[in-house]
Structure formats: structure tokens, C-alpha cells
């Protein structure tokens, strides 16, 4: 467990968090701008010092103001990747990589070849940071952080400064990272798709407070989150590719049922994450054969809550195995269909966003 408690007051902003976070996997710190997610990360990094704070990582105390302990950033075994490319412009890619490696006591260059292969930056080693694209620079920055053999990797919106194409180019590397890395990663983001794709654990922040913290899929399916989070509401599930049909559809199976999506070039048996937006789910009381919507899942209504948008509500549904779905419908339809907790419905899924 990583224990992170921080209380600080700036003029006009205060951060009050008490978190217990898993020691492996990717923890996403998600929130809108001004929610305190970057400040939280900076406190973990030791770049900002919360006057009341305690941070314990893998049993080591990095900060405990009650005991007067505060390790400065350069004494913390962490890796840090910033939003914008932060390579040292006067050093070549290789020298950038070596900078942290040597200072962290990694004299033998342990993991050098592996990190370079993992991030695909072998051909860039002798280039100047200036001559790299934004995506390449971020990959080098990630490798540079990994080469210090950190016990915790911190990433502050590493994709936010990149355009969509570059994002698509770098996301697979981050995914590989998630699979191969055995250290915890804190990933700050305000992009729901990135979080859905990369995170295992989710911390939602609003106005410097933690509004939810839990496993990703469970937390995304919650209907009791503050209205600010209902706009992007949607669940994530992990499914297995079980068939490629000749008419151009791929069949995905998950414990709660199956879904058809357009053909995906993935071998049978491979696992995919997909995201179903609440606004892409509509409800019917009976299964119609005369609808064009292909993906229908029988479910039971759990709760119905108000949203940020006037006239709309959010319904939480449970499939037969307990998998939760969210559906966004109008209050008028809710009344017309009599959608209340316990009612059996058919969820019609208009589209499924595949995240890999």
C-alpha cells in the first residue's frame, strides 16, 4: 500500500487528500483542471511540500511532517514524466538517458537495452532533443525516468501536449509499459479515454478533495459520483475476441454477455478493453427483433440519479453476472417506461469504443 495524506492551503485552493493506493498497476488521478491532481502529484514527487503530509511508499517514509521528515525530490527513488517534453536541450538523447542513470547508481546501465527496446528509441540515441517529434521526446523522457530504476513512476498528463496522431503513436508504448512494469504508476489525466485505456485504479478529484478511489471498472460504474463526472460517464469492460464473422463484425465475449463490433485485427482469444458511454446506451422494456441495434443486453435497473444536464438521468444497470452498465436517458422516457430500481430492461448498446 502507498499511503498518501496531504493537506495544504494556497490562496484560493486547498488540497485535502487521504489515500491508500495499490503498490502495483496504474493509478489514474483524474479530475477537471483545478481539481488538484497535478498538485497531488507534485506533493508525491516532493516538488511541493504540504505543511501537513505523510507519504509512505513501499514501507519507506518519504514525508512525515509529524516526525519532521521530508525527503527532497532528488533523494526519492521516483521517475517523473512531465506534460511537455522536458529533455535537457543541451544534451543528446543518449546523454539525457545517462544523466539520471548515473546519478541513481545504475552504473552498469542495467535495463538500458530493455528500456530502449520497450520504448522504441534505439535509432534516436545520437540525436539532439530538438530534432525529435513530440511523441519521440516523450518516449525518451519515459525511458530516462525508467533508467533511474524508480520505485514509483509519476506521469503528469504525458500526452496532453500531443496531437491526436502522436497520442495514438505513443499510447501502445504506455500500454506495453503497464504490462511489463512491476512498479506502481501514478498517471494524471483529464482525458477519460486515456484513463479507461491505461488505468487499473482510479482516483477522482474535485476541488482538492478525493470524491472516489477504487478499482477502475468498479469506480467508473458508480452512479453516486458528483454530477460533474456524469457528463463523461461510461463503463469499461474487458472482453475476449471470440469470432471474426464474414460480414465484417468481430464478436467480443465478457462474463455478462457478448458484443459485436466492427472487424478488429486481433487474434482470437486476445483481450481487449472497451468503453461503453452512458449516452450510447438506451433502454427498452422488451427485446425487439425489429430494431437495427445489434447489441442488446438484458439487465436489471439498480439506481437512477440526476445528471448535470437538465432533463437527463443516469441509470445504473446490472447484467445477469453483476457487471454494471450505465445508461443516460431522458427523465421523460424514464417516466414513460417506468424505469425504477428492480425493473427488468433491455440495454441497447449503440456503440462500443474499443480502447486498444
Amino acid at each position, binding site marked *: 500500500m502507498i499511503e498518501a495524506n496531504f493537506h495544504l492551503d494556497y490562496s484560493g485552493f486547498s488540497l485535502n487528500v487521504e489515500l491508500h493506493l495499490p503498490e502495483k498497476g496504474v493509478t489514474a488521478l483524474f479530475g477537471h483542471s483545478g481539481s488538484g491532481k497535478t498538485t497531488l502529484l507534485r506533493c508525491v514527487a516532493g516538488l511541493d511540500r504540504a505543511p501537513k503530509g505523510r507519504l509512505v511508499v513501499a514501507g519507506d517514509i518519504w514525508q512525515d511532517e509529524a516526525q519532521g521528515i521530508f525527503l527532497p525530490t*532528488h533523494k526519492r527513488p521516483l521517475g517523473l514524466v512531465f506534460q511537455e517534453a522536458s529533455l535537457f536541450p543541451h544534451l543528446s538523447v543518449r546523454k539525457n538517458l545517462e544523466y539520471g542513470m548515473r546519478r541513481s547508481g545504475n552504473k552498469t546501465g542495467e535495463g538500458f537495452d530493455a528500456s530502449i527496446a520497450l520504448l522504441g528509441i534505439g535509432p534516436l540515441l545520437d540525436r539532439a*532533443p*530538438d530534432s525529435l517529434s513530440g511523441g519521440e521526446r516523450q518516449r525518451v523522457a519515459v525511458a530516462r525516468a525508467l533508467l533511474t530504476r524508480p520505485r514509483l513512476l509519476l506521469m503528469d498528463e504525458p500526452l496532453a501536449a500531443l496531437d491526436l496522431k502522436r497520442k495514438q503513436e505513443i499510447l501502445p508504448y504506455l500500454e506495453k509499459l503497464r504490462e511489463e512494469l512491476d512498479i506502481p504508476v501514478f498517471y494524471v489525466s483529464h482525458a477519460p479515454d486515456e484513463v479507461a485505456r491505461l488505468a487499473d485504479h482510479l482516483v477522482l478529484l474535485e476541488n482538492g478533495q478525493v470524491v472516489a478511489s477504487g478499482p477502475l471498472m468498479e469506480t467508473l460504474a458508480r452512479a453516486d459520483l458528483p454530477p460533474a463526472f456524469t457528463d463523461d460517464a461510461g463503463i469499461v469492460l474487458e472482453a475476449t475476441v471470440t469470432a471474426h464473422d464474414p460480414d465484417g463484425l468481430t464478436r467480443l465475449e465478457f462474463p455478462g454477455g457478448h458484443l459485436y463490433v466492427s472487424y478488429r485485427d486481433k487474434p482470437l482469444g486476445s483481450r481487449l478493453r472497451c468503453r461503453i458511454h452512458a449516452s450510447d446506451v438506451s433502454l427498452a422494456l422488451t427485446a425487439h427483433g425489429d430494431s437495427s441495434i445489434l447489441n442488446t443486453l438484458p439487465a436489471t435497473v439498480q439506481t437512477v440519479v440526476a445528471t448535470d444536464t437538465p432533463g437527463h438521468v443516469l441509470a445504473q444497470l446490472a447484467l445477469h453476472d453483476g457487471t454494471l452498465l450505465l445508461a443516460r436517458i431522458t427523465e421523460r422516457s424514464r417516466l414513460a417506461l417506468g424505469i425504477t430500481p428492480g425493473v427488468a430492461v433491455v440495454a441497447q448498446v449503440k456503440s462500443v469504443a474499443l480502447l486498444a
Partner: protein
Amino acid sequence: MEASSLSAIWLTLKLASLVTVLLLLVGTPIAWWLSRTRSRWKGPVGAVVALPLVLPPTVLGFYLLLLMGPHGPVGKITQALGWGVLPFSFTGLVIASVFYSLPFVVQPIQNAFEAMGERPLEVAASLRASPWDAFFTIALPLARPGFVTAAILGFAHTIGEFGVVLMIGGNIPGKTQVLSVRIYDYVEAMEYGQAHILAGGMVIFSFLVLLALYGSRNRRGWSR
């Protein structure tokens, strides 16, 4: 060229070189502090450093003369230490010049440190570099254009000074008589030919210095 001209040139170059080295040593910590501090003393200290920009050199020279003279506080200390008094000596000239040219060195370096921002140092810290380590391996190299500008301006400005030199160093050939004062003497004595050699030389020298400065700025993208 007369021997007194040559010795004035030599003295001027010696003075400017020594002053530039001292200014970089003294100016760098001041510039670093000014660029990083949130202290309420930042304003007053910055203003004091910038004073020579607006004060007539004679004012600066006058007070330095009083401070370092036999009855001034600094003069009393130097005498007690057995160093004698500083005015009308080369050392006195060096000290006065350091004050006089300080803003020309501090400000470019301070600007370079400020333009760099906190980020490179935060990154260095995340890569286990101690603050000193980060200062020497990251901050100094990144601020290099500021140092080049500062050194050139400090050197050139020291070469061009007149009022402070006259107030504090007088006009002792071979000891405190620098180029600008030598030219003044030639003009007073109506030796325009000799004055032209030195004055024209100064114009060409100054032009070349500035050309090197601005030319290098355009050529070299220091963002790289």
C-alpha cells in the same frame, strides 16, 4: 602610436578582463538569487544592482571615493589591514568598475535563469541531481547565452567607462590612466591625430564586439 597610448590600451584591457572575471563570479550568485527568490528583499536588491544604469558615473565615483578614501569606513579597514587606501590605485579602479558594470552582467544572467524556469531543475531533481549538481550541469549550460552576453557587455562597458575612472583612479599614466582618459588628454592638448587613432580604434572595436554579440544570437538557436 605613442607609448602612453599603448600603456593605456594595455591597462584598459587588463582592467576589463579582470573586472569581467570578477563580475561573472560575483554576478552569478546575485542573478541566481534574484531569479529564484520570493523574498521581499528582491525589489530593493534588484534596484541597488541597477543603480549604476541611471546614476551619473560621477555620483558613483564620488561616493566610492569617500567610502574608500582615508577617512571612509572602507578606507579605514584597508588601512588597518595594511593595504593602504584604494583610490588612485589599480585595485581601486577594479573595485569601482565592478560596481559600475554590475547591472550589465547581472541582468542578462538573471534573464537567462528566469527564461529557463523551474522545470529543468525539477526534472534534474527527479533524476537524482542535488541542487548544486543541477546548477552546474543544467542551469549553467542552459543559461550560457546569458553568460556570453553578460561577459561581452561587462567587458565592453568597463572599457568604455570614463567618469568613475576619473573620480576614483585619477589619471596616473601606466597605473590608472585608461583609454578613455587618455583620449580626453589628447583632445585637451589638441593632439587630434593621436586622439583619432585611439577613438577610431574604439569605434571599430565596439562595433566588432556588438557584431559578434548580435551575430551569434542569430546564428545559434540556444533552444537546442
